[in-house]
């Protein structure tokens, strides 16, 4: 049987000179689930954006269903049945499910839309998908897991039989992931082809038939899923042996941060933190683990003084708290500012010339160069805007700046999100080092592996409450996953 998609020697050079793909060839067979595995920046998303017509390759040939194609836009790709669900959803929150699904592909009746006809068709597809929601519900009211299914529904409505999913599980709860996988298997049974982009080895092993590993814009290897092992995949992805982070035994000091019956309101005025109690000791990593949107954001903002406390108390034994925010691009950095100015944000008062109002930029540049050395930040010129750095290096800039404030209490929120394996390990090791130095670390995360790997104690947050707290060694994946979903075991 000839392959349904064949990409030959694809090269992609972005206008800024970044080489994302250095000659990648890929074949996809009809009816298979192909895993595209690799670290951030390996070129997975770029390759699939090319296949879905969003961007054009610099060089290379693409054959779909036996014909040479040259997609100029996603619509060209759709005509060949290729559709991509992006990591960041492209739904309009104010529109209903139905409106979102038909957007751009409305069936017209005179001057209006043939609502009867389209809603019948969409309803049918939704039933096939197992999506049992009222199609008139505005997307804004849907949980993330359902939104993703709406994205997939949108693709089916457009007649897609080669479905590309870009890191589809990154925002889902463990239960939602299960349900997504069930759906994907059903697709496969119907003869549809799925390309599944991921950087999570465990997921690739669970859902795919075949795995292609990309590294630095090249194909590193290709394996049949049933005939490979996690360690083989990890070796292919990073080309170095991944060893677990070692941690000296748990030896906590005095409590550093005491949270007593804390109540905090969210943006809409309702309580999102509902009476939380916990203590973080010096010399430990305390993990607040939960699916996003369960009050973590408000909790942390109240702790660091960005949000008013309605009731309860926060007692910090050290004067300053260092805060590594969740979204580095909005909360952590000023993307349009040069790297060196980003490294002094908030501590710029320490860089005055002879205590006047003037800044001593020579001192600033020294400080930046020191941080770059200490935290291995890869940057060609510190005068360039920080937005030109890779995600991992951006995160290092945030962390370097925050740790240069030399506080004894560190609050880190999703510090490894979107980072590649090497950068993730670096950040986790750094947090463990801080703990070993006797600092108090509060880690907010939704990543079960991360929580189990580095936390000493874990509190699971669900709907604004801590519904379970224990030593990390007493948790396993399953117990933690269930608790995160609100199921008390």
């Amino acid at each position, binding site marked *: 049987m000839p392959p349904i998609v064949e990409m030959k020697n694809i090269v992609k050079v972005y206008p800024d000179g970044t080489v994302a793909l250095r000659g990648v060839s890929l074949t996809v067979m009809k009816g298979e689930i192909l895993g595209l595995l690799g670290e951030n920046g390996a070129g997975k998303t770029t390759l699939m954006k090319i296949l879905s017509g969003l961007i054009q390759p610099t060089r290379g040939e693409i054959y779909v269903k036996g014909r040479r194609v040259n997609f100029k836009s996603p619509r060209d790709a759709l005509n060949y049945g290729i559709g991509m669900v992006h990591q960041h959803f492209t739904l309009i929150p104010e529109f209903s499910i139905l409106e979102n699904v038909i957007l751009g592909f409305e069936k017209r009746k005179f001057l209006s839309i043939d609502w009867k006809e389209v809603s019948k068709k969409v309803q049918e597809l939704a039933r096939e998908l197992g999506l049992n929601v009222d199609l008139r519900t505005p997307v804004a009211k849907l949980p993330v897991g359902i939104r993703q299914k709406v994205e997939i529904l949108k693709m089916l409505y457009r007649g897609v039989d080669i479905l590309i999913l870009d890191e589809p599980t990154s925002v889902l709860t463990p239960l939602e992931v299960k349900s997504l996988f069930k759906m994907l298997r059903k697709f496969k049974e119907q003869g549809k082809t799925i390309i599944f982009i991921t950087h999570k080895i465990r997921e690739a092993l669970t859902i795919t038939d075949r795995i292609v590993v990309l590294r630095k814009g090249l194909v590193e290897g290709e394996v049949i899923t049933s005939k490979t092992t996690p360690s083989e995949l990890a070796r292919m992805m990073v080309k170095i042996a991944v060893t677990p982070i070692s941690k000296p035994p748990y030896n906590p000091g005095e409590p550093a941060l005491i949270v007593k019956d804390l109540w905090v309101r969210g*943006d809409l005025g309702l309580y999102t933190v509902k009476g939380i109690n916990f203590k973080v000791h010096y010399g430990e990593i305390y993990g607040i683990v939960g699916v996003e949107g369960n009050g973590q954001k408000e909790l942390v903002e109240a702790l*660091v003084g*960005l949000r008013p406390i309605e009731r309860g108390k926060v007692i910090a034994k050290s004067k300053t708290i260092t*805060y590594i*925010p969740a979204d580095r691009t*909005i*909360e*952590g*950095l*000023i*993307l*349009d*500012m040069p790297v060196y*100015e980003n490294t*002094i*944000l*908030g*501590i*710029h*008062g320490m*860089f*005055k010339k002879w205590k006047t*109002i*003037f*800044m001593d*930029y020579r001192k600033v540049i020294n400080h930046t160069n020191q941080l770059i050395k200490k935290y291995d930040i890869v940057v060609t010129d510190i005068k360039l805007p920080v937005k030109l750095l890779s995600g991992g290096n951006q995160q290092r800039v945030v962390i370097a*700046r925050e740790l240069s404030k030399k506080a004894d209490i560190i609050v880190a929120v999703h510090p490894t999100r979107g980072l590649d394996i090497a950068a993730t390990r670096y950040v986790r090791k750094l947090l463990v080092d801080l703990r070993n130095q006797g600092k108090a670390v509060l880690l907010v995360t939704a990543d079960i592996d991360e929580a189990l790997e580095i936390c000493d104690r874990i509190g699971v947050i669900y709907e604004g409450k801590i519904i379970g707290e224990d030593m990390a060694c007493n948790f396993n994946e399953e117990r933690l996953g269930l608790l995160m979903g609100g199921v008390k075991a």
Partner: protein
Amino acid sequence: MDVISSITSVIAGFGLGALLLYLTGYSPIVAYSALFHGAFGTVESIFDTLTAMIPIIFAGLSAAIVFKASLFFIGMEGQLYIGAITAFLAGYLISAPSGVHTIIALIVGGLGGVLWGLLPGYLRAYHGVNETVLAIMLNWIAIYLSDYIVEYAFIDPYATIARTYKVKPSAIVPDISRDIPLNYMFIVAVISSFIIGLLMYKTTLGFEIRSVGLNPIASRIAGINVRKTYFKTFIISGFLAGLAGASMVLGVFGSLVYRFSPGYGWDGITAALIAKNNPFMIIPASLLLATLRTGSIGMMLVAGVSNEMVLVIQGIILIVAAIPEVYRMIHRRIMLRRFRL
């Protein structure tokens, strides 16, 4: 980069204006040469153009600094009138040795602008009220307040035009020399643009203003007091706009004249946009604006272009020149609104 894009857009503006002139039956070459002759053809016209630059530079710096903080405050015209009123009152009511009196009156004029920025500054910084709407309303209050001073409270009944009594001679800003009919405020304005440049790029406050302007969320989380920074920005900006009015009263007219500003406050806003809010670029941008002000009469009289058409040409040149920055500012605001700020 910024300089090139500024120059290109100015050229594009003149080009589009030329096309419009051609399409309406005028010769662009005749019209534009009349424009430049009107602005630079004689010694007097050159000094008229340079004098017109003074308020535009001050108002331009005033606008540039608030725009840098991503505040779309456009109250310079009102602040200019209030600055003119307070400078007039200080020049008319206070007695002091000459020179000292001038400086006092100028400072009082600047403080008048600050006063007019306090309310919108406070409401924007601490209560999140839309600064653009506040600015438009306050502009009108300021203009009518100045009408009241000119036509009623301090009207000089023997003057041939609607104006107040003259300020005391000790408060007048002198010309640079007898041969150069250009007052010292021109030099002050040029120096000010360098001072504001230093402030923006070399001081902690400038760093805070730029940070807050580019991303208030990250700035706040990193520990910058965003509200305070907004408020300080309003104060400095107000002082500069007030100086624009004060320099007209003390340097050009010697009194408060009925509706003396042909829109210098707005010219300043345009200058800031053309200069991409770069304080050093405000000077050439102000030269362009002043040229259009003083040269347009020539275009009208010599080239026979109708008054309305002159305004249209001016408008086209300015809109095209200012579009890139306006686009950037709107884009940034939309981005920030998405993140509820």
